[in-house]
């Protein structure tokens, strides 16, 4: 027990508990739905998770710094549409360039948000509530009500969602899912080991202290928004590839899905703690609930009510478990501290 307590923190157990919840959910649904354990179920969940996850990674960084980015849905929609329009007009555009266009556009939109929050000192919820409306408004005007259609897009893009990264037995791991997982791994490692990225945690944990020890707090917040925008841009590209038909409505309301994933994934909404891996688990949890509920033979109209309930349960059980663990941990810590200097006391 002591060893466990030394090496595993409650925060890690939180992710583990979410993982357990996911396994439990899969087992429960598996017993209720015929033919649940198929590669198709996996693919459904994996592909619907892929895009949300990429956005949720960016959102996690923003939330870590005690901010929130509600503009992500609009950024995904704008980049999907704009990149789609460019590809429709210039079929010869190399894939890499298309991805870069999407990311650059997302980056620019994120940078505007970030500049307003970090340097304009406007609370992030106000900035992103505003830019949520503004970006969408610009898209509606820019689009001229046209829809980007699948057949106007180059073939490589249309085939992208079906591209397999690797096939294990029955299981096709699609490239887009692999990409999302890759990004999670990259950012998980980055936020664990890169000193620059650890600043997101420090900044969100205690902004005053961060300022006092000379961290560039504004730059940190700014870069969180830029990364969130850039990842949303990448997600916009993935969105374009997956859905092909992009209207001005694209990804409307995605911000709520993303925030839900981040919250269920155990990222503290008040900053400072949580991981991108947790956010991905949150996205997976919600996708499993959504996809599985649909397949149960219940009315279409019951889904939202049950989904709301399950999200609440996920958050609540997670919080209760975590509180218990924290209490156990801090009790032992208290004992440690009440005997300060046991090692060297005279």
């Amino acid at each position, binding site marked *: 027990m002591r060893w466990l307590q030394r090496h595993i923190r409650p925060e890690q157990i939180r992710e583990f508990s979410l993982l357990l919840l996911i396994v439990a959910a899969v087992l429960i649904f598996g017993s209720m739905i015929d033919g649940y354990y198929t590669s198709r179920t996996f693919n459904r969940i994996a592909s619907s998770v892929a895009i949300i996850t990429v956005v949720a990674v960016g959102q996690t960084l923003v939330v870590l710094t005690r901010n929130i980015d509600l503009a992500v849905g609009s950024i995904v929609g704008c980049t999907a549409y704009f990149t789609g329009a460019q590809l429709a007009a210039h079929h010869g555009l190399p894939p890499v360039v298309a991805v870069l266009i999407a990311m650059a556009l997302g980056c620019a939109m994120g940078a505007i948000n970030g500049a307003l929050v970090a340097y304009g000192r406007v609370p992030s919820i106000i900035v992103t509530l*505003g830019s949520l409306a*503004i970006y969408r408004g610009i898209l509606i005007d820019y689009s001229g009500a046209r829809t980007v259609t699948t057949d106007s897009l180059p073939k490589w893009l249309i085939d992208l969602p079906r591209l397999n990264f690797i096939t294990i037995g029955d299981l096709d791991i699609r490239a887009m899912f692999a990409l999302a997982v890759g990004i999670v791994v990259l950012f998980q490692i980055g936020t664990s080991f890169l000193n620059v990225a650890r600043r997101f945690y420090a900044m969100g944990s205690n902004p005053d202290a961060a300022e006092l020890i000379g961290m560039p707090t504004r730059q940190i917040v700014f870069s969180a928004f830029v990364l969130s925008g850039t990842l949303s841009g990448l997600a916009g590209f993935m969105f374009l590839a997956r859905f092909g038909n992009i209207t001005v409505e694209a990804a409307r309301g995605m911000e709520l899905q993303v925030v839900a994933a981040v*919250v269920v994934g155990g990222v503290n909404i008040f900053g400072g703690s949580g991981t991108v891996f947790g956010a991905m688990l949150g996205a997976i949890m919600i996708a499993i609930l959504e996809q599985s509920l649909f397949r149960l033979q219940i009315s279409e109209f019951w889904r*939202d009510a049950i989904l709301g309930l399950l999200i609440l349960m996920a958050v609540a059980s997670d919080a209760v478990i975590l509180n218990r663990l924290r209490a156990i941990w801090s009790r032992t810590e208290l004992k440690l501290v009440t005997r300060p200097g046991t090692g060297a006391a005279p």
Partner: protein
Amino acid sequence: MTLPPILRRWEALLLLMLVVIAGLNIVYSPFYLGVGNIVNLFQLSIEKIIVALMMTLIIINGEIDLSVASVMGLSSCVTAYTFHAGWPMGWALTAGLASGAVAGAINGFWIAYVGLPSLAVTLAGLIGYRGVARILVEDRAYGGFPEWFNQLGQQPLLGPLTFSIIIFLAMFVFMAVVLHRSAAGRLVYVMGNNVQAARYSGVRVKRVKLLLFVASGVVAALAGLLYSARLGSVRGDMAVGFELDVITIVLLGGVSIFGGSGNLLGVGLSILVILNLRNGMGLADITGNTQTSVIGALLILSVLVPNMARGLHSKLQGRET
């Protein structure tokens, strides 16, 4: 920071915006000053601004309620469903209000007694309560309410004022008194500033928080019923997405999203600013997406410009901030 104190006040800025917008409206639209138009200006957003009053208290308390629009839908659907199941209208309306109280109590329980973040709980409520409304009405639309109900929502009751507008005005006064003069209002602020200090002062913080969310549910339910009366019929998508407009109004009113500060005067002015802006743009034939973009920009600029002015000012004073 040696700006004249009056200009430092958020409310002064809002008042200035209001004067400019109203001035432009008067100059550019001959229809603006009509009594009918002024009534319409309120009437078209009346439910949102009623909910905004209660949301002000919730945000000052340091919480947020994202589920209000879904509760509006829920109460409408409960009322419509029970009415069509043969209940008398009075009981159906009571059921609608009760559904709001229950929804608010559920939110409040998880937030106050279990300690979950309100953002997460009410996000689940946003999805879940809408879901319950959907279960009740499915793809149907319910109309055929008693004539008095529809008239209450649509016809003037007192002079040019409709029932909803009277409710709003009464609630505004009531909320202003509650928030700024009553013990309850004091506790809302104290808890928003420092919930621990409140607890250590013997404030029953859990109970206050629970009651606030119940009140929020009831007010949202009331607004939903007023909305049904105004529209004369009920569907499952009643008031979808209203929460963003409501929160926008409150934040533009100078209420800090972190709780503890803000007042109803600011929110009242913010309501007037947004309503007049929308009305003016509507009369100028400016479409929906431009309207929301303009309000989005206004929201950002209203915080950014004073910030920059302050920054510039202190730079001119030769001091670092």
